[in-house]
């Protein structure tokens, strides 16, 4: 079952594959832990419509639905695609939001360089290890999506 009540956009009509404000909210929270403003969400929807490649393959559609249905999986999907298919249209949608958030004064503190103490650098190194683990799990998810989850 897919969240939302509309038909799947793969059939041509509006549906979960079309970008929505709720998607924008999920993605922004996933990327920086903050909600986008209405204007940023609208900007993202416009960017996806104008710039993102369509989710043309069954695997991309499935991964998108999976991520939007369970936001905690966005990171896994993203990490897996970063290894398996870094220029996937699914990842492109996430990337467009990242760019929009960065070019906004509301969120600039999340992007501008800041001094880091040694402890903070060590914490970042740990985060790097966690990212690698997420990458491994995501790789498995993306590889199996479309094979095991037909």
């Amino acid at each position: 079952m897919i969240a939302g009540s509309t038909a799947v956009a793969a059939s041509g009509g509006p549906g979960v594959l079309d970008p929505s404000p709720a998607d924008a909210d999920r993605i922004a929270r996933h990327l920086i832990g903050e909600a986008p403003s209405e204007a940023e969400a609208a900007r993202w929807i416009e960017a996806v419509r104008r710039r993102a490649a369509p989710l043309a393959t069954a695997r991309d559609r499935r991964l998108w639905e999976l991520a939007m249905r369970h936001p905690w999986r966005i990171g896994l999907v993203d990490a897996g695609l970063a290894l398996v298919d870094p220029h996937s249209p699914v990842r492109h949608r996430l990337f467009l939001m990242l760019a929009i958030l960065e070019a906004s004064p509301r969120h600039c503190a999340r992007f501008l360089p800041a001094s880091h103490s040694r402890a903070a650098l060590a914490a970042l190194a740990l985060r790097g290890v966690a990212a690698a683990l997420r990458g491994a799990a995501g790789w498995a998810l993306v590889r199996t999506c479309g094979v095991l989850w037909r």
Partner: protein
Amino acid sequence: MTHDVIVVGSGMSGAHAAQTLVEAGRRVLMLDVGTRETRYAGLVPERDFLAVRESDEDQHRYFLGDDFEGIPWGPAAPSLTPPRRYLTAGTERWCPVRADGFAALESLCYGGLGSGWGAGCAVYPRVELEAMGLVPGAIAEAYRVVAGRIGVVSRRDDATPYCSEGLASPSEPLRMDTSIGLLHAAYKRRRPRLAARGLVMGKDPMAVLTRPLGERGATPYTDMEFWADHEGAVYRPWMTVDALRRSDGFAYEPGWFALSFGESADQVEVRARAVEGGGDRAFSARRLVLACGALGTARIVLRSLPGPGRLPLLTNPYAIAACLHPRMLGRVLERDRTSLGQLEMFHDPRGDRLGARMVSLYTYRSLLLFKLVKEAPLALCDALPLLRALSPALVLATINHPDVPAEGKSCELVPDPDSATGDALRVAWAATPAEERENAASERAILWGLRQLGCVPVKVQHLPPGSAVHYAGTLPFRDDEAPRSLARDGRLAGTRRVHVADGSGFRYLPANGLSFTLMANAHLVARALAAAEP
């Protein structure tokens, strides 16, 4: 007004040829497409990058573009920022290039590619000038003339024999930021060891003001050079054309794409097509100066003259090494800094300055973090904090190699019904196996040198040929009036009234940027033309 000279193109060569001609009392008509930036002009505040980021609600318009054209996707490649995108507007329609893997970048805009250049003003060593077919003494004098016009800052250091010999700057060069300053200090400590491997470092002269000059102000160190022309501190050729347009004896005709020329007994006629509407018109004068860049001039010459259809072509092989500078971990770059190249390294494998490689060092901030995040093989949310911490420690080293003529480096016109001119330039360019070996050996030495400075190369990306945006050698200088060549004074062989003021004649392309030499050569071509026709 009857014109003595038609100058085609408003870029570096055209602007300085025109200035010299006007100063010599000639009546000049400049033909140009002259595309202007209208969408983002005036949007970028005259504030520093951090202040803009922290306060400007409209920053997404110029950082990302109204059509989100500033958000790249796909494999990493150099791209123009939205406010600079107009540089290439119309080129696909008016001057298409057909090539496998050749990334040509041309401009039809007002001021040409100089509207987005990095401001490097290399003074080539005598041995390189001779290899190019230029006269060192004359060029040395022309360098000084052009430096006085555009404002060039330089200083004497270890790199002077490679890039600034004979250039006296009245003002101090651009400041280095903390990261580059640390690398420079490391270089000074390890100088003998690096010199033993043919590596020296210093600062390229730059056309950036550190003191006001005329209407232009000193650089405010806003770190916004990729987005705007704050204070007019970085020289742009349109500044010269703007000034010429206020003088008698100069007329500017925008909206015309020059197609071809023909000579009569006492005149030369340029056939041009209107960019809007497409009608053709002929412009006449006593002399013609082509200054459309090597590729643009090649098209006009190939359409105009009978003879061999294939021309040689030079371009610099180009790579970017992304390096980590661990001493900067945990630190941040200062607010007041420049986005431009801050320090150069030269690798001189033979020790004779001919064929030296040029490396320019940049730190990274004002091109925004998301472009870096995309390149990490991690989830974007994981890559963001890591790269945010690492970005002040990132040093980008652009590596330029020289080029010489060889089989497999050429261009020719081919029919193309989709283009506004009915033709396209087909380009083939491949380094010879020997060149590839030499370039690889040189890159190994350069990366070794960077490691010696405490800068760890993590990734080297070889960009497609043409990416360096330096093209030359299509009509090489010769003394025998051979077809498709230039006399030393820039006159096109087989013509009496047609002169070429861009880099078409250069028989060798040094690794360091050719812009300053383009302007100096254009001055000399114009001066010779003025002297020949009092």
